[in-house]
């Protein structure tokens, strides 16, 4: 085994071990919860970057898939008392079906049209979440969703929830990374680069687009289901188009043709929201100012990254790597 290969295998293992070890270092329940939020966002953003960063298919409706997963899980566990793993699987499946239903009629749409169609889908789903009171409990929100449980093991503590969410995030990252590094990744990047060229190569554009949407929606749905059972409460506001825009911002800032960049962006942009808890000694007033200006930071970051660093974090990293190598 060469030294390079050893590094390539050991580094991810070490990183995974560090992620797993975090709850032993950090005993503060609140900080663990924030890192759990970051993991939940990361799962969605991995799926979104798969679709958007690699496939070039924009979605402004991903929060709706989270909602589908969350409400499915909530109903199956809180109302029907089904085992949590079953609920999680069904939640992912329902979100996948949602992705399929959005993808099929959207096949002809590109760029701006797709953006608007997914935005319309997101808004419509949000109205549905508000109006479908028997299933969603309307604007008041769905409370008392049972925590995740596997068999007789109930995952309640912040550390357990953190491990669960990041384990799912890790699996999602691994699966997505495998797909983008092999044939589907090339097909999606080809589709992004030139649809005509991809067609001429015999790439099954319809199949690839639909699969990219379904994979992406499934990850969002799983994240929503995990959110519902980890936090215990969901309401339609959590699945609004504003949230979708936030996910897209994470994917854009993270950079296209990258999964790690978007994961880092998801972590960073989630942590920024809780700056007061993370930065020791920050005054409460300063923290409040930061919170008030948080959307500005998002907006500015999107504009700046798109204008001046179109590749996002992913490209910055790649460039640095190239610089080191030469």
């Amino acid at each position, binding site marked *: 085994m060469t030294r390079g290969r050893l590094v390539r*295998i050991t580094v991810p293992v070490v990183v995974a071990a560090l992620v797993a070890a*975090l709850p032993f270092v950090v005993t503060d329940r609140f*900080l663990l919860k924030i890192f759990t939020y970051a993991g939940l966002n990361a799962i969605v953003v991995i799926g979104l970057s798969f679709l958007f960063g690699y496939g070039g298919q924009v979605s402004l409706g991903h929060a709706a898939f989270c909602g589908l997963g969350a409400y499915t899980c909530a109903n199956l566990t809180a109302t029907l008392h089904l085992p949590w793993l079953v609920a999680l699987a069904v939640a992912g499946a329902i979100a996948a079906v949602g992705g399929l239903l959005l993808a099929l009629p959207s096949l002809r749409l590109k760029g701006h049209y797709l953006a608007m169609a997914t935005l319309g889908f997101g808004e419509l789903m949000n109205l549905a979440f508000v109006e479908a009171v028997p299933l969603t409990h309307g604007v008041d929100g769905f409370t008392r969703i049972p925590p995740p449980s596997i068999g007789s093991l109930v995952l309640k503590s912040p550390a357990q929830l953190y491990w669960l969410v990041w384990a799912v995030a890790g699996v999602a*990252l691994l699966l997505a990374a495998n797909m983008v590094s092999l044939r589907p990744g090339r097909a999606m990047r080809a589709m992004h680069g030139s649809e005509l060229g991809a067609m001429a190569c015999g790439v099954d554009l319809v199949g690839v687009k639909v699969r990219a949407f379904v994979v992406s929606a499934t990850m969002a749905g799983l994240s929503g289901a995990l959110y519902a059972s980890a936090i215990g*409460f969901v309401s339609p506001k959590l699945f609004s188009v504003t949230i979708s825009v936030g996910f897209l911002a994470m994917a854009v800032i993270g950079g296209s043709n990258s999964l790690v960049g978007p994961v880092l962006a998801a972590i960073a942009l989630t942590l920024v929201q809780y700056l007061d808890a993370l*930065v020791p000694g920050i005054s409460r007033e300063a923290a409040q100012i930061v919170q008030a200006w948080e959307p500005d930071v998002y907006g500015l970051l999107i504009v700046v990254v798109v204008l001046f660093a179109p590749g996002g974090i992913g490209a910055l*990293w790649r460039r640095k790597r190239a610089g080191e190598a030469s």
Partner: protein
Amino acid sequence: MQTGAERMKRSAPESCGKGGEEMGLVRSWARPLALALAVALVVTAAGCSGAKSGGGTSSETYKVGAILSLTGSYAALGTSEQNALKLEVDKINAAGGVSGKKIDLVVVDDGTDEAKAVAAATKLIDQDEVIAILGATGTGQSMAIRNEVDRAGLPEISMAGGTAITATFDKFVFQTPWSNTIVVPFVLEKIAADGHKTIAVLSDSSGYGKDGLAVIKNAAAGAGLTIASDQTFNPGDTDFSAQLTKIKNSDADAVLLWTAGKEGASIVKSAADLGVKQPWYGGSGQAKIEFPKGAGGAAEGFVFGTGKSLVPANWGTDSEEYKVVNDFATRYKAAYNQDPDIFAGHAYDALAILVDALKRTGGKTEPAALRDAVEQTKDLVGFGGPFTFTATDHNGLTTDDLALYRITGESWEPIK
């Protein structure tokens, strides 16, 4: 512009050779992830130490948490609440605190966002180790944090008006505003007393409006009223022609508007323009100055019911209530150069209830004891009126604490 060849030279060394495709990717994500984790660990460790040094309930102070919407769509409400809480905490501390210990108020902004409210609750409970949570500002946020509150078993005193907060009962959750369950029958009684027999109801589809509508439907018959037309609108709507036309053409003698949203002003304006002749009634949602101001004269004569304290003299100038409310209003005005709105009042009450309970526990802050003490609140005179909680009533106010007002010009006057 670089030439192709120049770019070539730069990118050529990047090549990792044939067959290294899939491994290249692993390498590309491994290192940034490692970096991120390292940063995260450092930040977290720092955060922990920071939290530890400042955190924990020290023996010298009571740490009280408040989850307020200081940004987002309820920012105006949350800001009033923060003003009131700071004013009262300063006053209490200046007078030596409660049972000799000062209050340390920890305010967290939830940005009118349920997810942030939940995080805020966790932070207050686990990082700051507060003894109770005041808030949240909004009904959604108040509901969202219940799981956390239940887990910790400490009292939550909400300042939001949604009936759901105490109607879907939770042992640990209390509420200070006049809820729909008492305001609705009070206003219906007034409508009937004015000689009306049938009403049209116009409510919004938010939690407050939906909830109000349900109470109206339950209580109308009891007040001798029939509902001739039942119309709804969505928060954010700007055109109400459909609803108002139907109300205008209905047999209703009067219109009852139930909304806490900003749409109220546009609705009464539009009603005047469309020739809706029936008299209008409403609830606490209209007890804010933006309503008559925004309506620009169209709200003239609008009658609404809410707490007596909107005009403290309602209580009678020699009453205990008057003293409490007037004293608060005077100090608030002196501190912030504006009259307190009802939201400031609800915050005042939340703190007052907690402080009263603390006095009765003799300074003990065990969650169970404190919760029980809050539930045993009896005849505590606050902004909303005298509060008396029971094991089944966590709202604690009655129709006796309400009064009727009529809009005149850009303000209102109590109806005698």
